[in-house]
């Protein structure tokens, strides 16, 4: 009986987050922000359980996984379970961290359970050790200015274009490529 309740809980969670995410993909930024916020709690709980020996890495990895979800969000197919998609990304980033640290993967058997990610949440964010602001500041202007204007100061693409003297398409491309460059910097900075 309890098992059934738990499974219903997963499904409700899956449906709710998927709805938010799909609306986000269609351009609803508020829904997208709510989605990322709730997802970060699940990612934190998921990663904390698997980084028992590296507790200081958890928040950095949560941020890296969130950035990966954002940069790769065009690969999501709404006909597939959201939990499977998100978990594959979280697992990939976890394995990547292990590889960087030359730690052989332990407990691989428990990493593949598709239901697992949405089953626990942890809203208590720790301090991240890596400062993304610093990495952002190191990006070349063609990436840094579009991200600063549209994503940190909240200007529209047009306003950002006027302010920086770049074209509107250069702003859009700059944000997209800049966030990918940020992810690459995170990988390289380790």
């Amino acid at each position, binding site marked *: 009986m309890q098992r059934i309740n738990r499974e219903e809980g997963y499904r409700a969670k899956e449906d709710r987050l998927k709805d938010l995410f799909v609306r*986000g*993909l*269609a*351009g609803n*930024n*508020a829904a*997208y*922000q709510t989605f*990322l*916020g709730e997802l*970060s709690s699940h990612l934190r709980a998921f990663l904390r359980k698997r980084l028992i020996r590296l507790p200081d890495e958890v*928040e950095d990895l*949560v*941020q890296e996984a*969130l*950035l*990966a979800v*954002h*940069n*790769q*969000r*065009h*690969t*999501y*197919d709404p006909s*597939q*379970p959201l*939990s*499977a*998609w*998100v*978990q*594959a*990304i979280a*697992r*990939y980033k976890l394995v*990547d961290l292990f*590889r960087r640290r030359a730690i052989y993967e332990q407990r691989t058997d428990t990493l593949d359970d*598709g239901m697992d990610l949405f089953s626990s949440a942890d809203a208590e*964010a720790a*301090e*991240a050790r890596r*400062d*993304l*602001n610093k990495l*952002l500041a190191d990006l070349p202007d063609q990436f840094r200015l579009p*991200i600063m204007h*549209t*994503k*940190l100061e*909240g200007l*529209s*693409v047009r306003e950002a274009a006027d302010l920086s003297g770049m074209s509107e398409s250069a702003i859009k491309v700059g*944000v997209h490529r800049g*966030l990918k460059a940020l*992810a690459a910097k995170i*990988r390289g900075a380790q």
Partner: protein
Amino acid sequence: MKTEDLITMLATGAGAVEAPAAAQRYALAIGWGATGATLLMLALLQVRHDLGHALLLPMFWVKVGFVGCVAAGSLFAVLRLSRPGANINWVPVALGLPVLGMWTIAAFTLIEAEPMERSKIFFGDTWKSCPLLIAMLSAPVFVAVLRTMKDLAPTRPRLAGFAAGLLAGAVAAVVYCLHCPELGAPFIGFWYLLGMLIPAAAGFSFGNSLLRW
């Protein structure tokens, strides 16, 4: 930066996603790669002189059909392996079926042949160069497909690299069919397959580093 601030930053101005579908991107990559492979083939090898005659032989089309099916199967694998958490249960079937089909035809050919003829059928005249030439022709498609794949999200980079290599090898083999004089099923089932597996093995070996995202 706090995680909360990162979330606000990512969501601000995020807008609708306007990325073209993965299948479209791969179609473009394969198109460019196949053009490159064809140019390489025309420059370094040449079209077999009796191509007009060969086009009338059923075995020519069996050969093209085989490598075409491997290409289709590996494209299916590539698409699945580019998307995190996608179901890949059918990938081994899609890759295995064309090979099993070719091997069945090859087995019948060998059984029916005179014992003295068998090694001639298996080795043909060009077994030494065939796999290497297919591997060489696969380079343009391989590069194009890997570039596309890196922009998607392969979470099993070794398998994804293998599938990308096999796709490149299969497209190269289709191009190579225009040059290659061999038509024996055992030859195709072994040496062509070997040629396609060379880039696949390279993709498997270097997948972890080439496909990091």
